[in-house]
């Protein structure tokens, strides 16, 4: 299909279908978009041709790549610096264990059990090392744990794990050359300057219809992304760090975040997730289902082995520790970003990519279900311990508003 506007209409049509499915099935739009992308490629590929959806065309790749970068920036910007400062010891210990154990465990399983190449195995380790802070956050918010010390520590640890994943993705597959040195120096300079310059610049010139803030942020993300690619690294690495560094300023500007969210979820991430789904090969999944089982099991077992002892070291009871561990075993966004990086750089093939994405999606769903069904530490919920909430909670997660008459 050569007509760009027709093709864009097809993609936005798929995005609309995915959104409707997400509403009906009460799942996230991202997950729905991945599945719709897979099914669309299967059907359109069979009926029209394998390249009809245009997943590999430059403009689709650009929109999808921008979606991944801005999504990563937003993920970093959601860090709560005050909570992180208060919980940094636990966050660092648990977060690092949560990254390192599955990174090594999944890489080992891919290399020795599945016979993948060393690079493909490391890539599997990176993709499986993630924790989905969004999945964890949704559960914390729904159950009220986000206001407890327990939930805050868990969320802070998620950011450390994801930082580990992003750093690994940006460093492991990057050749160490003079370009790397230039990239590191530029990163150090920008990372030092941005938190100082950005709030002042926005105070002086921001708050206008011309959306200066959005342009400034996109400039920083594109420039550093370009430099990262030039140095053989990955564009999401600086995006995540920039997000974390600006979390205390830009991250608290709710109006700006809401506008970025509109741009991201309205146009960019549908291209990213549908494209990620379109590369999934269903025949590969059906042909070798045990590969999915091995990858998923490697992630679960190594997360258990790494996170549970680390959590217990902070004196959580067994049930609390198991729930904490299962929550830290979830993954989605950075897992798919890592897998897509591997596919687009020729580190893994379409079959390996498909199994990694399937295992990532499995890790978003299965640990959450098990944790909430069997290990939820009900006694830590705010309703049980009487913590403050703007809309006072009552047992069962209810909110009782004041009588008004």
């Amino acid at each position, binding site marked *: 299909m050569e007509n760009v506007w027709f093709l864009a209409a097809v993609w936005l049509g798929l995005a609309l279908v995915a959104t409707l499915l997400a509403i009906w099935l009460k799942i996230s*739009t991202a*997950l729905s978009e991945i599945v719709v992308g897979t099914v669309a490629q299967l059907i359109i590929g069979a009926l029209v041709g394998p390249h009809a959806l245009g997943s590999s065309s430059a403009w689709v790749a650009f929109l999808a790549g921008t979606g991944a970068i801005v999504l990563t920036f937003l*993920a970093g910007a*959601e860090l709560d610096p005050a909570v992180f400062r208060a919980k940094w010891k636990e966050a660092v210990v648990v977060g690092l264990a949560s990254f390192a154990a599955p990174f090594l465990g999944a890489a080992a399983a891919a290399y020795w059990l599945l016979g993948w190449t060393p690079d493909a195995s490391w890539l599997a380790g990176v993709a499986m090392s993630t924790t989905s802070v*969004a*999945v964890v956050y*949704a559960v914390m918010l729904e159950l009220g744990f986000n206001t407890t010390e327990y939930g805050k520590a868990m969320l802070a640890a998620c950011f450390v794990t994801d930082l580990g994943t992003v750093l690994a993705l940006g460093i492991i597959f990057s050749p160490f050359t003079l370009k790397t040195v230039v990239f590191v120096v530029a990163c150090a300079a920008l990372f030092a300057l941005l938190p100082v310059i950005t709030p002042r610049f926005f105070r002086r010139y921001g708050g206008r219809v011309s959306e200066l803030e959005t342009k400034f942020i996109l400039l920083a993300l594109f420039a550093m992304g370009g430099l990262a690619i030039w140095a053989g690294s990955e564009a999401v690495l600086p995006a995540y760090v920039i997000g974390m560094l600006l979390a205390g300023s830009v991250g608290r500007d709710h109006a700006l975040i809401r506008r970025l969210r509109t741009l991201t979820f309205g146009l960019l*991430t549908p291209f990213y997730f549908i494209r990620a789904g379109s590369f999934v090969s269903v025949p590969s999944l059906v042909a070798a289902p045990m590969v999915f089982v091995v990858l998923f099991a490697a992630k679960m077992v190594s997360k258990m082995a790494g996170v549970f002892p680390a959590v217990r070291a902070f004196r959580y009871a067994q049930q609390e520790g198991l729930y904490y561990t299962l929550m830290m075993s979830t993954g*989605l966004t950075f897992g798919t970003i890592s897998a897509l990086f591997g596919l687009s750089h020729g580190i893994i093939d379409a079959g390996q990519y498909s199994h990694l994405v399937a295992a990532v999606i499995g890790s978003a769903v299965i640990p959450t279900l098990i944790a909430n069904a069997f290990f939820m530490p009900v006694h830590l919920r705010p309703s049980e311990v009487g913590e403050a909430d703007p809309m006072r909670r009552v047992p069962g997660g209810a909110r009782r508003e004041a009588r008004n008459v």
Partner: protein
Amino acid sequence: MFKRILVAYDGSDGARAALKRGIELATALGAELSSISVEEHLPHYAASISEVKAAKEQIDEYFRGLTKHARDQAALAGVELETIVKQGHEVETIVTLAREGKFDLLVIGHHGHSRIFERTMGSTAQSIVRLAPCPVLVAK
């Protein structure tokens, strides 16, 4: 007769009728009146915190408006209404609250949301009538 009345209120036409009947009964009987609104779940397996926060903001805004409207309606009739918002499955949540809150009358609308569930499992109203621990008045 009835001392504690609970109205299931989700803002639908049926629920509005239930609220109206609940207010009338509470006025006539001098009973305590409460309403229960069941929140939808947040999107499961989201890609970013932003998506979850956006959904939460929308849900909160909707239920804030919903409960304010219910309290305003009750206040117009001189009735004190306690509004309760809970997360979970509609039938299970309403029935559990009716039992734990020791309500002696549950007023529900004939049609709420959760249409897919209704088609596959039977209507929400039917399930509540079957499972409720107290008399149920279905308003039309």
